[in-house]
């Protein structure tokens, strides 16, 4: 999935922030199943990385394109 506009970038950043907050909560909370916690953290981090890649790709294209920020 590729981002198409700055509006989508902003929305993705907001989801990114929520997911990063969630990761901190998962890491800090008491846990009775360490294995499941690891799986959850791994899954959330994978989604976070995917979002960061999409934002970076969009920003990279936007900075090289001769268009104005919407």
């Amino acid at each position, binding site marked *: *999935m590729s*981002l*198409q*506009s700055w*509006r*989508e970038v902003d*929305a*993705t950043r*907001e*989801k990114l922030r*929520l*997911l990063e907050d*969630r990761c901190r909560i*998962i890491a800090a909370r008491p846990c009775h*199943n360490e294995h*499941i*916690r690891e*799986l*959850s953290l*791994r*899954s*959330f981090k*994978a*989604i976070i990385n*995917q979002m960061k890649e999409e934002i970076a790709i969009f920003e990279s294209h936007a900075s090289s394109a001769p268009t104005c920020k919407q």
Partner: protein
Amino acid sequence: MHSRRLDNHVARVRSHGRCVHGGTDVVTNLQRPCDGCNRSKKADRLIVTTSGFLTARLRKIQLHSGVRMIPAFDERGYLSAGVHLASLDEVEARFGRQSEVRRVQMESLQWLVKLATKAGVQRLIINGSFVTERSEPNDVDCALLTGADFPRDKQAEQDILDGLPFLQIALIGQEDFDYLVDSVFATDRQQITKGVVEVIL
């Protein structure tokens, strides 16, 4: 019997204005053929707006009563907001045959369902462009809720973690599963609400 239980549940939802299980589901009417006599019958469809609402029991009731349906796409090509229950066959008929890309994505999904069942996954939600109107989706985002005895089969778990073509798989516990489905999957990149599909395992 199952149908009667579901009717009772729907009646309670209506009288209380919300689901007695704590969700915020919306009840709508539609016509469907009665399973018993095949005549058209007024039935109720539950649109679930919080993933925690549907208990395993109610999902079974919906499965056996046939009171479920993947809704039509809206004007943006999305499903209406909520979690829409469907069997794997229903998912294939609706999303898995319309293009070559969709066919191979569907094959991956079928493998995932087999592995998930073996591994002891309790619920499987499909998100991403696969459950939209796009003829050639980019990806199939899947959220898998680990069951109490997960992993029932270590090899199946490892196969899921190794990944499958086209699938972005999140394997997570209950609390985080609800969060992911309700907070991240519920909207698109422009924060427009959309629906997801739950495959009945």
